[in-house]
């Protein structure tokens, strides 16, 4: 009884929230024009709710959204190599363009994975696109105000995407948690940024670096830095600011979770790296063992150490694959931070490489989760039992993703870890970061256990009966997407040069 009334209440709210979403969408279309995306995005399909519910309209919506993203990728590729708009609010550089393309590709894959069973499909896709615009702003800005606007735009869209499944109470819970944590973290970031603005009187990253160059680390400045970092630690789900992640990953619609884990993470790491390495460069500090100097790097080092330990240890006991992926995401955030802590061109490029391949891995893994969930009705580990007998392709791809996450060759995760850890080892006087590298290796050792458990369940046992509800065509598209992600992970493992050379060329 209680549950029913709750559902009714949710449905009741449903009509309210739809109104707000409809109000947002026209702005989104204008936003796409600004970002150089297809101006032909029809507003009508989103407004007409009944039309969008039919299968043909859903397919049409996806087609339009996907086409828009492809055109956007084309547009990014046609941008000039370097440009600076509105005093650094929007900066076009090889690095920014590269990661705009990465974000767009990730959004494209997310749209392909989005389940047709999601109601109000047009709205959902529109919010994904809106979040994508936020990511593009984040990636392409080198100015604090614009970065904050990008953060908020992405964040608000992701809260909506998380809570989008109104028939599932978990989704509502996840959305609420994500929203509360996220808005608190945003407030911290804004406060931190305002403190820094107060000290240096500018919002441009390069100018902040100049302003900070002569200064010693005053308590006020340190407070500003720490508060800024808190907001980003939340974004990348670094412990102890990770508490929203398991619920969001588990409760959100699968494609939303995939986007949170991939696109949002890539953009956050790019912008975090830019802020600390460019803006806060002069107050680097040192995270070397026995020689710590106050600054942002020891703060990040502590976050990384916590993330690696907590993420891996808690992931050991998970029985739900999405929760397991969430905790492993916490651990991976810790590994990825190593590159930023190491700093310099090599460290930052290692971070960028790792976060990119990690995003593709997780999109693929969530794709497998989406297919299995559709077929068996759940995403606990048991639901994956006997998958090998049903779909060798999915199992092969899942093996690629899990082994890449564990850091085994010949997959991209192996090279990524090598690159990351060797960069961290090289940085610092007298191999001072060895303690973090050793900790990260220890974490990888733990992680191998639970990734192997996942693979064991998939490979070994005959399993749960199939509930074939979905149409074959949709699975076909999902399968294609998953196979594409697996191919990227394998390709970047065998030929990492492809991406490394581009990142290194783009970094100054």
């Amino acid at each position, binding site marked *: 009884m209680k549950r029913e009334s709750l559902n009714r209440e949710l449905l009741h709210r449903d009509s309210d929230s739809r109104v707000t979403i409809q109000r947002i969408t026209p702005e989104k279309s204008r936003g796409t024009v600004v970002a150089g995306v297809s101006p032909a995005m029809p507003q009508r399909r989103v407004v007409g709710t009944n039309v969008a519910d039919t299968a043909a309209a859903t397919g049409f919506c996806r087609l339009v959204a996907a086409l828009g993203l492809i055109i956007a990728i084309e547009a990014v590729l046609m941008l000039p190599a370097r440009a600076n708009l509105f005093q650094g609010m929007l900066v076009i550089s090889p690095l920014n363009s590269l990661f705009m393309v990465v974000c767009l590709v990730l959004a494209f894959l997310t749209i392909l994975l989005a389940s047709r069973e999601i109601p109000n499909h047009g709205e959902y896709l529109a919010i994904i696109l809106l979040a994508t615009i936020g990511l593009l702003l984040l990636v392409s800005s080198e100015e604090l105000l614009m970065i904050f606007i990008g953060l908020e735009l992405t964040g608000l869209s992701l809260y909506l995407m998380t809570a989008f499944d109104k028939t599932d109470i978990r989704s509502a819970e996840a959305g609420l948690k994500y929203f509360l944590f996220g808005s608190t973290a945003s407030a911290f970031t804004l406060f931190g940024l305002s403190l820094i603005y107060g000290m240096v009187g500018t919002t441009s990253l390069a100018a902040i670096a100049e302003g900070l160059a002569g200064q010693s680390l005053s308590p006020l400045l340190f407070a500003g830095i720490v508060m800024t970092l808190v907001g980003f630690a939340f974004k990348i789900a670094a412990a102890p600011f990770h508490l929203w992640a398991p619920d969001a990953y588990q409760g959100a619609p699968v494609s939303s979770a995939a986007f949170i884990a991939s696109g949002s993470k890539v953009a956050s790491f790019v912008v975090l790296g830019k802020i600390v390495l460019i803006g806060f460069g002069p107050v680097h500090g040192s995270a070397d063992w026995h020689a710590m100097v106050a600054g942002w790097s020891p703060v990040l080092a502590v976050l990384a150490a916590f993330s690696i330990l907590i993420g891996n240890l808690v992931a050991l006991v998970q*029985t739900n694959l999405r929760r397991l992926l969430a905790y492993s995401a916490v651990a991976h955030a810790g590994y990825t931070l190593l590159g930023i802590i190491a700093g310099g061109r090599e460290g930052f490029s290692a971070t960028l490489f790792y976060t990119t391949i990690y995003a593709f891995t997780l999109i693929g893994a969530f794709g497998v989760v989406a297919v299995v969930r559709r077929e068996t009705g759940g995403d606990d*580990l*048991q639901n994956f*039992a*006997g998958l090998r007998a049903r779909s060798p392709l999915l199992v092969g791809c899942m093996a690629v993703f899990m*082994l890449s996450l564990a850091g*085994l*060759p*010949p997959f991209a995760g*192996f*090279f990524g870890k*090598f*690159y990351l*850890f*060797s960069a961290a*080892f*090289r940085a610092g006087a007298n*191999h001072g970061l*060895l303690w973090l*590298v*050793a900790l990260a*290796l*220890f974490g*990888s*050792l733990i992680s*191998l*256990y639970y990734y*192997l*458990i996942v*693979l*064991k*369940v998939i*490979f*070994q*046992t*005959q*399993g*749960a009966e199939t509930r074939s509800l979905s149409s074959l065509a949709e699975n076909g598209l999902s399968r294609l997407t998953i196979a594409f992600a697996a191919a990227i992970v394998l390709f970047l493992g065998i030929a*990492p*040069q492809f991406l*490394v*050379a581009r990142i*290194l060329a783009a970094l100054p």
Partner: protein
Amino acid sequence: MIAWTIYITFGGAVLLLFLPRAFSRWIALLITTATFAISLATFFCHDLDLAHFTTIVRVPWVPALGMNYHLAVDGISLTLVLVTSITAVSSVLFSWDIANPASGGQLLPSGNNSPYESASRSSWATEPVDAIGCPPGAKRVDQRPNEFFFWLLLIAGSSFGVFLSADLFLLFVFYELVIVPKYFLIAIWGSTNKEYGAMKLTLYSFFGGALVFIGIIAAYVSAGSLDLKELAQFRFTPQLQAWAFPILFLGFAVLAGIWPLHTWAPTGHVAAPTAGSMLLAGIVMKLGAYGGLRVAMNLFPQGFQMWSSWIAILAVIGIVYAAAVALRQRDLKFVIGYSSVSHMGFVLLGLATANVLGVSGAVLQMFSHGLIGALLFAVAGRMIYRRTHTRDLDELSLMELNRALPFAAFVFVIASAASMGIPGFSGFAAEITILIGVWKTFPIAVWITGAGMVLVAAFTLRALKRSFFDTALEEGQNVKRVTTPKAFASRPLNREALEPITVPEKLGAVLLMFGTLAIGIYPKFLLDRIQPAVEAMRFLAR
């Protein structure tokens, strides 16, 4: 040409996934035989300089980080490639009827056969899974031969890769590539306590890999290069060598079964399917020893000098301890598993001597144990266990297997003799070379090792007698019956029901026996190629 061993093995592995499973064993046999032919042909190819690490292929791979696809070969690598290919061929032959659905359930005994099986339920994930799909006692019909041979070829191909790599990163890639196939071979096709054994082995290997990783990064960051030939010329600071060498060597030695990090070996060997144990004992343990020699010792000679006596101490403890433990085992495969640890102790002891004889002997011992270990596991796992469904020495002792399986008895006698170090077999040639080397460096170790060799002979003879030649019990001596499990009483052995030894089994056994005999009689064939290569290394105490 030798580089093709890698390519055709990996190519064949991928091909297996796309062809009908009826062909899989033939393809696997064809590929492994081809690698054997290639490595043997390279031995007789005189225009190759085996005294130095000679580059075969060198292509830029990740120029931004100085990584090359760089393969090279010398006498040591070639010897190990040869033993890998021989073991691979015979392990395919010993898994010949895995592709035959008629004999399906026998490789995967149902839980009620083995007294150890119940322990495998401890893992948290098995219970819900088994509750859904696989009720205990169910026999799987599908043996998935193409997957089996896929993993098997991956192990062989990666091992070729490790032995031929001349780039540190490439070597590490191949080294880590072995981990996953081992896990699946054991976890899917294994027997006693397979999930525990597979996970333990994998985590130990990965732990070793993590240590190696730190050592490799240390070498890479200080020297700015990953090329093994360049690194072998580079002078690392003594401070770096002092801490990087033990980490790197220990990381590799985990896989070589150094005491006290050896415990994965018996558990893993016992849990693995026959071909898996053969590859583990025959090849995978050698990867660790080879890595220690080629990378750790050759890169950090001063570090090696500081730590060599510690390695020798651990190796001697390993030899004696493992032999003593083997003496008390009831499971035949555990006996052989501990004997592997004991024999690999000789390899580590030989490496620790840092003179030409000791190190050459160690390489020869790697070759020799590759064949003997594989042969012993083939008899225990394939010829005996698959037919009698028990490896318990007390049960076997009642079966008079020497009459039921005379060929198996013959092979086991040969293998035991070789394992004990009887002159005429390769084990003798290798161990005597090592001990002469040891005498020059650590004379006291020879005495202790001598005692260890007596123990080796003792447990080998005990296993041999209990498994094949125990006839005394039939005359009503009830003394030992007390220790036999009750299960046996209800399962009297019908001697005629035992399936005779098949032709592929005979072929595989003959191949391995021929190898160990040939090298035992004429060790110069290998030593002539190993010694110059060892002399070219820079760690030698002159």
